């Protein structure tokens, strides 16, 4: 099967407008006859559900949480990008497009990224109209801040909880449609499989997580908005329930899975404290606006700090190595995430780590506190040379900007970050890879769409900060509602889809069999045992840097872990009750398959690009070395029995508007 990305013809700045003018429409009367299923209610799923319902479709929305408002988009902290150029610092649609393609290390699709940049400004207008309380300046206008990998301030924010405020906006739009009866909401429901009829997506099988009931739901199209698969690593900044299952189920029924190995390891997370750790907590990238990252210059100081004999505040400026500022003078602490993460790993691997485990670096706000304090003192006519006054005023400014993040840090680590530098280390945060989609966001299964983090389309091999929220809302509010009409226009005479067919029966049967197996196996090992073990394999051998030997070992180890799982898994409780172990077991069984494809994809791609760093492919200075001649393509994997037999399809990426260059932040 040949991949057709369906990119419209014409100049890049006119593609989306022309496409919208030429795609088919569904009349309001016909929309009332058409059902759409949306799985997931984060920014992408929530905004899509609300907009599709508003257009007149009958939407059935599903989430595994007890309320759509709890989807993990809620935890996004830093902000959302938009090419508004409110700051007059030279921003434009083209620059946002350019930064995103460059940030993604030239492995994303130009046309999709341009469209994203184009609709970005609409998102802010939309959210403000919905009552999202973005940060404002004293004149009452919207405020912006700067994020990694760019030289303009285009990030809109709501303190350190932009995700929650945007999601509450999408959720409120959903509430309006739920009240009108246009969205039927299914909370605490998990999608167990997709149902195809005549090759088209026509419904899903779900499990009610309260009573275990297996249910059939039909629709004319199915939209997957179930997020990314960072929990493959066990430890990540994803929510405990985040999983790949919806994406994996459609993959097994024919949807290609693209670039699975493209994972984002976020540089500023709270370090692991011990084996009991269940998840990792992010400290927003926005902190790098004001925080400076460093380790001691001498190894003996690093060891003294690790052993508690020396305090970081006792080191003078010239005893510190601000390694990002040293290596990347142009972008300094605001280099993109992949670059910052690798640099932290490099220092820690070399023996300069600063916590007990040797896997942490400092993020220091002392100089920002002085800078802001002096500014404030001048404004208030106070003595700028008085350290006490300056410190107090400076801390107030930092508190107003990052208060909740500092509080969160203090609660978890039990140290006061206003007085001593934070300790941070990279952690898995986001997956750029995902279900392959064409320009219309449709997967290789007709009628099955994937939006938000679940798809692969916009971020290439590395995502820039504050772009995930942008993509989720762009897909849901402004892209899918148009493109889905082009597909559904063929369905206006189909009528209601029956669930009393062989296809639904078969799908339901196989779901029930799998659950029965898990409950009846009565092995000796818990789900968490397997999940932790899988996570360790992936983190150690497919993490921040990868090599051929390690990847080959990982594939073998995952295969045998999977065998072990089916022999020895033990799931307590019953299938007809609230049973979290059972829900986890079904999710982990899918991670055990994805993990292998992930390693296989990383093995195939012998170049380094973005978050994918192959040790065999690096420059003398240790920077990632791309191989444009052989790898300017998207790896789209077709399922074929087991992950090891998956078939690789290549979507060649054509760069017509941006010249491929070595990405440099020096």
């Amino acid at each position, binding site marked *: 099967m040949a991949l057709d990305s369906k990119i419209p013809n014409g100049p890049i700045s006119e593609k989306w407008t022309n496409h919208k003018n030429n795609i088919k429409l569904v009349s309001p009367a016909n929309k009332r006859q058409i059902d759409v299923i949306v799985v997931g209610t984060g920014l992408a799923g929530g905004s899509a559900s609300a907009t599709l319902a508003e257009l007149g479709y009958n939407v059935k929305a599903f989430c595994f949480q007890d309320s759509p*408002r709890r989807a993990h988009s809620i935890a996004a902290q830093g902000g959302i990008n938009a090419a508004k150029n409110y700051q007059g610092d030279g921003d434009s649609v083209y620059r946002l497009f350019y930064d995103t393609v460059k940030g993604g290390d030239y492995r994303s699709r130009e046309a999709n990224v341009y469209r994203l940049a184009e609709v970005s400004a609409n998102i802010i207008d939309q959210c403000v109209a919905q009552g999202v309380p973005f940060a404002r300046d004293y004149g009452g206008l919207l405020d912006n801040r700067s994020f990694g990998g760019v030289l303009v301030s285009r990030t809109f924010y709501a303190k350190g909880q932009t995700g929650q405020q945007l999601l509450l906006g999408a959720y409120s739009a959903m509430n309006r449609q739920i009240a009108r009866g246009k969205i039927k909401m299914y909370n605490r429901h998990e999608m167990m499989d997709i149902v195809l009829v005549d090759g088209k997506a026509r419904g899903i099988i779900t499990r009610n997580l309260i009573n275990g009931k297996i249910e059939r739901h039909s629709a004319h199209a199915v939209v997957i908005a179930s997020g990314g698969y960072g929990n493959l690593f066990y430890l990540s900044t994803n929510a405990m329930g985040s999983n790949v299952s919806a994406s994996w189920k459609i993959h097994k029924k024919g949807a290609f899975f693209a670039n699975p190995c493209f994972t984002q390891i976020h540089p500023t997370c709270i370090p692991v404290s011990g084996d009991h750790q269940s998840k990792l907590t992010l400290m927003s990238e926005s902190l790098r606006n004001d925080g400076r990252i460093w380790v001691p210059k001498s190894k003996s100081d690093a060891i003294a700090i690790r052993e508690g004999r020396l305090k970081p505040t006792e080191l003078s400026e010239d005893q510190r190595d601000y390694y990002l500022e040293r290596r990347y003078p142009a972008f300094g602490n605001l280099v993109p995430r992949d670059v910052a993460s690798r640099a932290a790993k490099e220092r820690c691997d070399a023996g300069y780590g600063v916590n007990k485990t040797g896997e942490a670096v400092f993020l220091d706000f002392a100089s920002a506190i002085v800078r802001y304090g002096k500014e404030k003192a001048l404004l208030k006519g106070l003595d700028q040379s008085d350290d006490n006054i300056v410190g107090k005023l400076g801390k107030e400014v930092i508190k107003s900007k990052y208060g909740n993040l500092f509080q969160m840090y203090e609660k978890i680590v039990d140290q006061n970050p206003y007085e001593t530098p934070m300790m941070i280390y990279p952690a898995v945060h986001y997956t750029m890879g995902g279900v392959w989609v064409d320009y219309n966001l449709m997967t290789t299964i007709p009628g099955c769409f994937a939006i938000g983090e679940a798809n692969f389309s916009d971020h290439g091999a590395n995502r820039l900060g504050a772009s995930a929220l942008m993509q989720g809302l762009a897909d849901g509010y402004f892209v899918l509602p148009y493109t889905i009409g082009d597909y559904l226009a063929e369905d206006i005479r189909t009528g209601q889809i029956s669930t009393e067919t062989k296809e639904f029966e078969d799908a339901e049967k196989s779901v029930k069999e799998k659950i029965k197996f898990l409950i009846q196996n009565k092995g000796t090992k818990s789900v968490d045992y397997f999940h932790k073990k899988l996570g360790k394999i992936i983190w150690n051998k497919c993490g921040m840097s990868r090599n051929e030997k390690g990847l080959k070992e990982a594939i073998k180890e995952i295969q045998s872990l999977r065998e072990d799982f089916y022999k020895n898994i033990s799931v307590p409780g019953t299938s007809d009750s609230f049973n979290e172990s059972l829900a986890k077991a079904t999710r982990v069984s899918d991670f055990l398959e994805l993990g292998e494809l992930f390693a296989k994809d990383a093995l195939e791609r012998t170049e380094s690009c973005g978050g994918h760093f192959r040790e065999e492919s690096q420059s003398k200075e240790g920077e990632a070395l791309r191989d444009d001649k052989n790898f300017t393509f998207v790896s789209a994997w077709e399922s074929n029995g087991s992950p090891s037999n998956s078939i690789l399809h290549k979507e060649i990426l054509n760069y017509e508007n941006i010249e491929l260059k070595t990405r440099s932040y020096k």
Partner: protein
Amino acid sequence: MRLKLKIWRQKNSQEKGEMVSYNIEDISPDMSFLEMMDVLNEQLTLKGVDPVAFDHDCREGICGSCSMFINGEAHGPDRLVTTCQLHMRKFKDGDTIYIEPFRANTFPVIKDLVVDRSAFDRIQHAGGYISINTSGNTQDANAIPIEKNSADKAFDAATCIGCGACVATCKNSSAMLFVSAKVSQFSLLPQGKVEANERVLNMVKQMDEEGFGNCTNTGACEVECPKGISLENIARMNRDFIKAKISK
């Protein structure tokens, strides 16, 4: 650390529940409370006992899923945190810890520590939104300047995570803090003023129909709220409500 846990176990919404004791050892003070629960559950699972069911998801204090009543306090003894951010260093070796679900008639128990908070969703269906289409044809975001003070207050109200600690804490199981935060978030902004009267009437009506109790201004909800939502919101909603009633 070595601890004694007394945990509410209840099979499902129909059956009666009871407190069950468990002993647990080797707990590190750096663990979060839920990580301590993970350790317990792993032990129960390996013994073939049904693990303790509890709601949790983001484990960074923002999704509002976790909902435990610990030693008689919603989200436990620490202030301004949810259960997932409560750490074991707040307890002492040898402590006995009582763990119960958020209790209220309007939050029926689903299993063990998991409760049904869908009443909160229904209150928001009744008016927790601004009736604006998501067509993207709205005016420029900077067309209406908003005074920083109002914007900040709206933001403070909007930080509510909908966990239900206020209801679980209130002796009357009142949802006034939650509803008033949701009402204020919109009524403080010019965009939300257009429908303000209708919104407050509809949301309060739904709150009453769900069976939440009355507010007697005790203020316990504010103390236990993990996001520090202020009682000021309740005063504002009462004012808005009366104004809306009169102008009707």
